[in-house]
């Protein structure tokens, strides 16, 4: 039981670190949103589940936090991406500009 919790916690922490690194490394806004959202969602799931395995009496609140993150995190990043799309940040345009600078 406690071993499962430790493994889940380490996996979660690795994915959280990857999420931060992805936000740092990706070249434009949409790709940053993708890397940030996906990696941190799974990382938070795994870390919080690990805590739930270590203290089984906290089960209800842990489940509430996980469901809440699963619903709100994609909605938040979709809203942000929609705002970027509506104000005219174009993914392909940025990519072409970057290629032009590289030549």
């Amino acid at each position, binding site marked *: 039981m406690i071993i499962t919790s430790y493994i889940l916690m380490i996996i979660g922490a690795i*994915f959280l670190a*990857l999420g931060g*690194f*992805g936000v740092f*490394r*990706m*070249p*434009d806004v*949409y*790709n940053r*949103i*993708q*890397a940030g*959202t*996906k*990696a941190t*969602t*799974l990382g938070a799931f795994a870390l919080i589940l690990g805590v739930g395995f270590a203290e089984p009496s906290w089960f*209800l*609140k842990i*489940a*509430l936090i996980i469901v809440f993150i699963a*619903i709100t995190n*994609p*909605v938040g*990043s*979709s809203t942000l*991406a*929609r705002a970027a*799309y*509506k104000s005219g940040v*174009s*993914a*392909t345009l940025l*990519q072409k500009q970057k290629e032009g600078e590289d030549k």
Partner: protein
Amino acid sequence: MKKTISTFLVLLAIWVLLTGFNWMEVVLGAAVSLVLAIIISRFVNYSFGFGIILGLIKFIVIYIPVFIFKLVLANIDIAYRVLSPKLPINPGIVKVPTKLKSDFGKFVLANSITLTPGTLSLDVEDDEVIVHWVNVKGKTSGEHQSRISKTFEKLLGGIVK
């Protein structure tokens, strides 16, 4: 009336989840939820009957395992793209048609697209989802649909409308 009862049940469920199960707490929560439900029920636009229990069980048993499997795949994909030194990405924006009609169905579909490999839903216009894709493959919108949302459409079509 139906709206008021639905709102009351949702609020009471959230209260019990937050405070834990204890008779005093549940009675107090029921009183607070009743007052709140009467006040806010004219602003909400949903209601449900007994059919929702069956729908919820179907949703948990059929949909959630596929979703979690796809989420893990998405993360391995994104980890590979972030960590490989050449950044293998080819981003673009595509439109994907959908057959789902209800708002809740579109909401779940858009959330699923956001959390599956390489795609991010930007906006929903009538029956099209605008999707940003890290690594665009294929030319026509049918081809895009079969790569992005076919599994979820098929699964969700049997559960919500």
